[in-house]
C-alpha cells in the first residue's frame, strides 16, 4: 500500500473556529483520516513543533494554516510550515485577509499594550510593566514571542498556494479542497477554492431586490429593526456586504436573517472590497440633490468597521508585507 500523503493542520493567530470547521466535516473527517496521515494538529492532538521541524523539505503534502500573523512565533511557525509543506492552503478569513484581528491595525502597537496591560479597568499594574521578549529569571532567561507592529495576512509573510476563505470556512469547501489536493485536480496557484460570483448572485433574497436598488433615508442596523426574513437587506436600508463579497459560504448568515459581513472577502478582480463598497453605497443612497447626504451617512455606525471587518490587512491603506529580515514593507 502506498504511503498516505502527510497533512499538517496548524493555527497561528486564530480563535480555533477554522479547526472547528474541520471537525464539522463529521463523517467526512473519517474519509479524510483514511486517505491522509495527519502529522500536526495542535488544537486537536498532541503534537510538538519539534516534530514538524524533523520533517524534510516538502515532505508534508499539504499544510492547512489558519489565523493571522502578529507575533514572532507566528512568523517562525508559518515559515517552518512553508518549508516542510509542498502546498500551503490559507484557511479562513484571518489567513486569507487578516480577519477581524486586522482591525487592530488601526491602533498603534504601543496604545494596544498600554490599554491591555496598564489602563484596562480590571488591571492593577502601577509600575506599568509590559511583557518583555526576554526576562531573566533565577539564572535563566524566559522568552516570549515579540508582539509586532502590524497584523499580517498569511500571504504577506509566506507564499500561499491556495485560499479557502470564510469565518469560519464551510466544511464543504474544506472537504472539496482536500479532495482536490488528493486528486491533484487543482486550479492555478494563488486561486481561491471558492466560487467566483458575488454573494448577491446566489442570495435567496436576490429575487426581492428591486430592478433599481435605492436606499432612502437613514441606514439601519440589524438589531434596530425587525427585518423581513425574505427581503433584500439593502432594499430595507440595512447594510449588507453581499455585492462586494465572494459567495461560497452557503448564505448561512442571510438564512438566519443576518446581513453579510464580508468574511469571504472580495470577488475576483477586486483589490479593496471596503473602498468598492463605499463607491457602490454612494451610488445606492438616494437622498436627493437637495437632501443632506451627511446626515444619512452619519447614520452608519462605525463605517470603517463595517467596510473592513475582515479585510483591513489586505486593503489599500492597510497592506504591508513582512520581509525575510522581519522588516515591514508597505
Amino acid at each position, binding site marked *: 500500500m502506498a504511503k498516505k500523503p502527510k497533512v499538517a493542520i496548524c493555527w497561528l493567530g486564530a480563535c480555533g473556529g477554522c479547526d472547528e470547521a474541520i471537525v464539522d466535516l463529521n463523517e467526512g473527517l473519517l474519509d479524510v483520516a483514511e486517505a491522509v496521515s495527519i502529522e500536526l494538529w495542535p488544537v486537536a492532538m498532541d503534537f510538538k513543533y519539534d516534530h514538524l521541524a524533523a520533517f524534510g523539505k516538502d515532505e508534508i503534502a499539504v499544510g492547512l494554516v489558519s489565523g493571522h500573523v502578529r507575533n514572532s512565533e507566528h512568523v517562525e511557525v508559518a515559515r517552518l510550515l512553508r518549508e516542510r509543506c509542498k502546498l500551503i492552503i490559507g484557511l479562513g478569513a484571518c489567513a486569507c485577509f487578516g480577519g477581524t484581528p486586522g482591525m487592530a491595525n488601526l491602533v498603534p502597537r504601543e496604545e494596544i499594550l498600554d490599554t491591555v496591560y496598564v489602563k484596562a479597568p480590571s488591571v492593577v499594574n502601577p509600575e506599568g510593566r509590559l511583557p518583555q521578549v526576554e526576562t531573566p529569571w533565577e539564572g535563566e532567561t524566559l522568552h516570549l514571542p515579540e508582539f509586532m507592529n502590524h497584523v499580517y495576512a498569511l500571504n504577506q509573510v509566506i507564499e500561499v498556494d491556495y485560499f479557502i476563505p470564510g469565518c469560519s470556512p464551510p466544511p464543504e469547501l474544506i472537504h472539496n479542497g482536500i479532495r482536490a489536493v488528493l486528486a491533484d485536480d487543482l486550479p492555478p496557484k494563488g486561486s481561491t477554492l471558492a466560487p467566483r460570483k458575488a454573494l448577491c448572485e446566489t442570495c435567496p433574497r436576490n429575487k426581492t431586490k428591486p430592478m433599481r436598488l435605492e436606499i432612502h433615508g437613514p441606514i439601519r442596523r440589524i438589531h434596530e429593526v425587525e427585518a423581513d426574513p425574505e427581503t433584500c437587506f439593502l432594499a430595507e436600508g440595512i447594510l449588507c456586504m453581499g455585492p462586494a463579497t465572494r459567495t461560497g459560504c452557503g448564505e448561512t448568515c442571510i438564512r438566519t436573517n443576518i446581513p453579510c459581513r464580508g468574511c469571504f472577502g472580495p470577488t475576483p478582480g477586486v483589490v479593496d472590497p471596503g473602498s468598492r463598497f*463605499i*463607491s457602490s453605497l*454612494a451610488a445606492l*443612497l438616494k437622498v436627493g440633490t437637495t437632501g443632506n447626504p451627511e446626515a444619512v451617512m452619519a447614520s452608519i455606525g462605525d463605517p470603517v468597521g463595517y467596510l473592513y471587518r475582515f479585510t483591513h490587512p489586505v486593503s*489599500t*491603506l492597510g*497592506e504591508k508585507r513582512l520581509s525575510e529580515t522581519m522588516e515591514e514593507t508597505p
Partner: protein
Amino acid sequence: MDDEPKLVCFSCKFGWGYLTKQEGLKDASDFLMPVECSGKLDAIHLLKVFKEGADGILILACEEEHCHFQEGNFRTVKMLYLLKEVLQAHGIEKDRVRIALSLDPEGRSIPGRIAQMKKSLMALGPLNRTLL
C-alpha cells in the same frame, strides 16, 4: 513641512478648464489629472493616491445639479463622506480631501485653488503615515 506638499488635483473635463490648453494648466500642479466626470473617481483611486505618497487631494467637480452625467458630482460628495471616515481612522485628517462644486471653463481659478489647498496642507504639516 520643508518640502512643498504633494497635492493631486482631479478636475472634471466638463466643468473645468476645457477652453484652455491642458498643458498650461499642468503648470499649476505636477499632479493635475483631468477626468471625464468626478463621478468616475472610485474610492480606491483616492486611497491609492495617499498610499503612494500624496499629502492631499483636490477634486474640481461640476456645480450642483449641473453634472453632465446627471449626478456624478453628487455621488462623489456622498462617496467622500465615507472615504473621509476611512482616512480619519488611519490618522489622516479629513481636510486633506476637498471638493469644489463649481464651474470654470477657462480654468483661471485652478492655479489659485491649488495654491490655496497647498497652503492648507502646509498648515496641517506632514501626513501621519504611522498606520499606513
